[in-house]
């Protein structure tokens, strides 16, 4: 942690050369003691929600004059265990910390005593305590490139960022590389867009260069921070936890493309991200890393933040541009690429938050280094948000090509209770649903596409045997139906019509012809929709049909929902051998549908039952069954 305060750094004023920047960096490093103890309190959204502010306050109050620092950082990824506290440099990892634990933590740190046992992570299988962060499987299987500084740096402190390598790439590029060399380095890295389509970033930049030359206008560079997939928080974590990485990537892109104006389009529901990006921009401007004559190189560039308009479709490139231009964010048909005609008809390079955040390290360490990570056509790492029926809900970064099972089982700790997972939805609401049989599929752009799914922006939803694929497909379809902008007919009418067919299936109404119609209508929507929202919306239906057709047939032929989810096809019953007559379920049932005497087996009145499942959850003896 920088012992030079932010104020002192800002007093350095606008740096006018790479040497001046390196000198400042040396000063920051010299003033900081790598062995000084830091107690880090995660202030990501998850830990904040679990009370990490109070934890930090309690630590601060208890620390008094002790020779250590309390630091708050962005999300560490292991949100399901929050609030998290990590002691550095020792690497001690504490989970579910409460303000009352502050004294014990400090005591153990200051007196060099035993770690606070009750706050340690325990391996769920062996119950062995794993005190060190680096030994916990959730972390040991990761490769953190984009997330490398998140959880280490104070995102509102540019000095801390610089101490951890921030802006080294910019200083290098401005003085040692031509813009064309920067583009070439990105191309060599093999980096592909992290926002969904996986378009090669270097190639996009190169065609932008050609368009700029042809048209004679400077380009715009734009960050897509609209992240709208339900359950996804990769981009939020990056913008909140390491805003300078996004900014530095954007400045590098601007230098490469000769852009003087950039835009960050950030989802309006991300106030902390917007705040941290604003602070980062202000600090970078004060140091001459942004604005006119950056680091004395003669290159001018500035950025503004635009708040997202609140619709999922605004993340789509043409809708995003119309939204920045001040009109309703609706997609436009495009047969001219946005690198030629984007914002206000000018050449524009739009990249995702994570894409931009990769750029500084590619420039610093070289495209070749990056190309050596991951697999040949999907290089580098990818950040995934792991949610659903998985023990370790959170955010992880792994090399491209890591097998699906490794992510879900090694990092994610598998399904609670130990059963195998049933399926994993990759690629967000318009991605695909891959079954357990496909667990060895390498998670990279092309392998996922071949399997019928997609990388998308990196959402992963784990499902177990209590998830019904018909219900899951309906859920995603309903989400996209609500998010359709309504401009084109295939999407506006088609998604509703597909959902209606699925509604029927969930009630046991339907035939094999309906399945054929569903597939044929899906193809018409994929081909006919104006933008990729409609174009990819049928994916969850198509992949669940591909991999779980039997489950669909069980609904429409046997009028049965094997997962016990679709309300019209299930019934609850009480096993008289297991029922102890404790009466808990009878008391909880909102319909008063359960009758029975104390200590005698109870019975459910099917006429009254609304199949809410409360009885099943409330029974301590596992006596309630669903079929």
């Amino acid at each position: 942690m920088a012992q030079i305060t932010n104020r002192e750094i800002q007093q350095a004023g606008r740096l006018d050369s790479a040497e001046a920047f390196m000198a400042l960096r040396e000063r920051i490093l010299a003033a900081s003691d790598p062995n000084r103890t830091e107690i880090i309190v995660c202030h990501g959204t998850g830990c904040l929600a679990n009370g990490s502010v109070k934890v930090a306050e309690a630590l601060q109050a208890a620390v008094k004059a002790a020779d250590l620092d309390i630091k708050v950082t962005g999300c560490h990824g292991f949100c399901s265990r929050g609030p998290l506290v990590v002691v550095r440099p020792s690497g001690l990892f504490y989970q579910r910390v409460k303000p009352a634990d502050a004294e014990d933590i400090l005591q153990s740190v200051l007196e060099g005593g035993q770690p606070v046992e009750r706050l340690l992570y325990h391996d769920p299988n062996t119950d062995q305590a794993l005190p060190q962060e680096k030994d916990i499987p959730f972390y040991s299987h990761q490769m953190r490139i984009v997330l490398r500084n998140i959880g280490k740096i104070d995102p509102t402190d540019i000095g801390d960022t610089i101490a951890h390598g921030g802006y080294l790439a910019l200083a290098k590029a401005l003085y040692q590389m031509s813009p064309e060399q920067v583009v070439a380095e990105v191309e060599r890295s093999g980096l592909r867009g992290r926002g969904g389509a996986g378009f090669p970033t270097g190639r996009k930049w190169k065609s932008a260069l050609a368009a700029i030359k042809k048209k004679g206008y400077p380009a715009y560079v734009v960050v897509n921070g609209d992240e709208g997939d339900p359950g996804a928080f990769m981009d939020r974590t990056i913008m909140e936890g390491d805003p300078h990485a996004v900014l530095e990537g954007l400045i590098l892109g601007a230098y490469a493309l000769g852009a003087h104006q950039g835009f960050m389009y950030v989802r309006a529901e991300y106030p902390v991200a917007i705040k941290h990006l604003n602070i980062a921009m202000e600090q970078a401007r004060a140091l001459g890393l942004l604005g006119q004559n950056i680091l004395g190189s003669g290159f001018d560039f500035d950025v503004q933040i635009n708040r997202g308009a609140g619709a999922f479709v605004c993340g789509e490139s043409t809708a995003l541009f119309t939204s920045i231009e001040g009109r309703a964010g609706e997609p436009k048909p495009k047969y001219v690429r946005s690198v030629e005609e984007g914002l206000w008809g000018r050449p524009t390079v739009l990249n995702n938050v994570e894409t931009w955040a990769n750029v500084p390290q590619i420039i610093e360490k070289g495209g070749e280094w990056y190309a050596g990570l991951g697999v040949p056509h999907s290089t580098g790492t990818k950040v995934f948000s792991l949610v659903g029926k998985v023990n370790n809900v959170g955010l992880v970064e792994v090399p491209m090509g890591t097998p699906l099972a490794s992510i879900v089982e090694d990092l994610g700790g598998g399904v609670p209770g130990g059963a195998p997972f049933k399926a994993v939805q990759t690629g967000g609401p318009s991605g695909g649903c891959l079954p357990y049989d496909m667990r060895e599929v390498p998670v990279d752009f092309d392998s996922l596409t071949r399997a019928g799914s997609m990388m998308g922006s990196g959402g992963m939803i784990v499902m177990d045997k209590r998830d019904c694929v018909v219900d899951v497909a309906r859920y995603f379809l309903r989400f996209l139906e609500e998010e359709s902008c309504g401009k084109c007919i295939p999407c506006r009418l088609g998604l509703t019509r597909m959902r209606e067919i699925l509604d029927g299936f969930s009630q046991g109404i339907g035939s094999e012809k309906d399945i054929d119609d569903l597939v044929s209508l899906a193809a018409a929507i994929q081909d006919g929709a104006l933008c990729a929202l409609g174009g990819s919306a049928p994916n969850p239906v198509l992949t669940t049909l591909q991999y779980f057709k039997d489950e669909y047939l069980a609904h429409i032929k046997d009028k049965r929902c094997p997962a016990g989810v679709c309300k019209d096809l299930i019934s609850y019953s009480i096993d008289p051998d297991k029922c102890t007559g404790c009466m808990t379920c009878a008391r909880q049932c909102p319909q008063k549908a359960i009758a029975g005497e104390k200590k005698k087996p109870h019975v459910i009145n099917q006429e009254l039952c609304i199949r809410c499942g409360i009885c099943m959850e409330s029974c301590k003896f596992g006596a309630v069954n669903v079929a």
Partner: protein
Amino acid sequence: MINMVIDGRQVQAQTGWTVLETARQNGIHIPTLCHHEAVEPSGACRLCVVEIGDETWSKIVISCMYPVAEGLNVKTDSPRVKNVRRWILEMLLAQCPASPEIRALAAEYGVQTTRFVNHDPNEQCILCGLCVRVCKEVVGVSAISTIGRGVHKKIGSPYGVVSDACVACGSCVTVCPTGAMSARLDAIRGVHAGREAGKGGK
């Protein structure tokens, strides 16, 4: 002059033309709903889809906006094109059963019935947006707009308030491909409401 192929026929186009213009110049019919020479294309109805490419690679594009290019190979009636058209028409049939124009168009492409339930037997509007565009771009008064978004989208007066900007030129009724506009113009202008309330209130 640009040389290209439509449905196996060698045709010529001028730089800047769309595939639709080229087809029409050459007497090849492609159905359209949201296209009109007088206004900017919007690509909303998707009925004008065609397939471009060859056996190894092809994709579906909309002919009303796709620019011609030397050597382009276009199919207006391939199985993929027919599938898109069929489902659009089948859905429109359920959406606007009150429109004789839509019924006739669907019948022309072999769609006589629909598998979908109808939610409003009086509906005629397909939300092609031609009325909105002609009012804004040609008449220049923007008395009509879409209200709401997504599946809840409707044609009405801006913000749902009776519009006194309308100059009663009737352009919207003329361009409307379904007859829906003549049924709703009064509501937009507030003729009934206006008369009853004495002035242009809601």
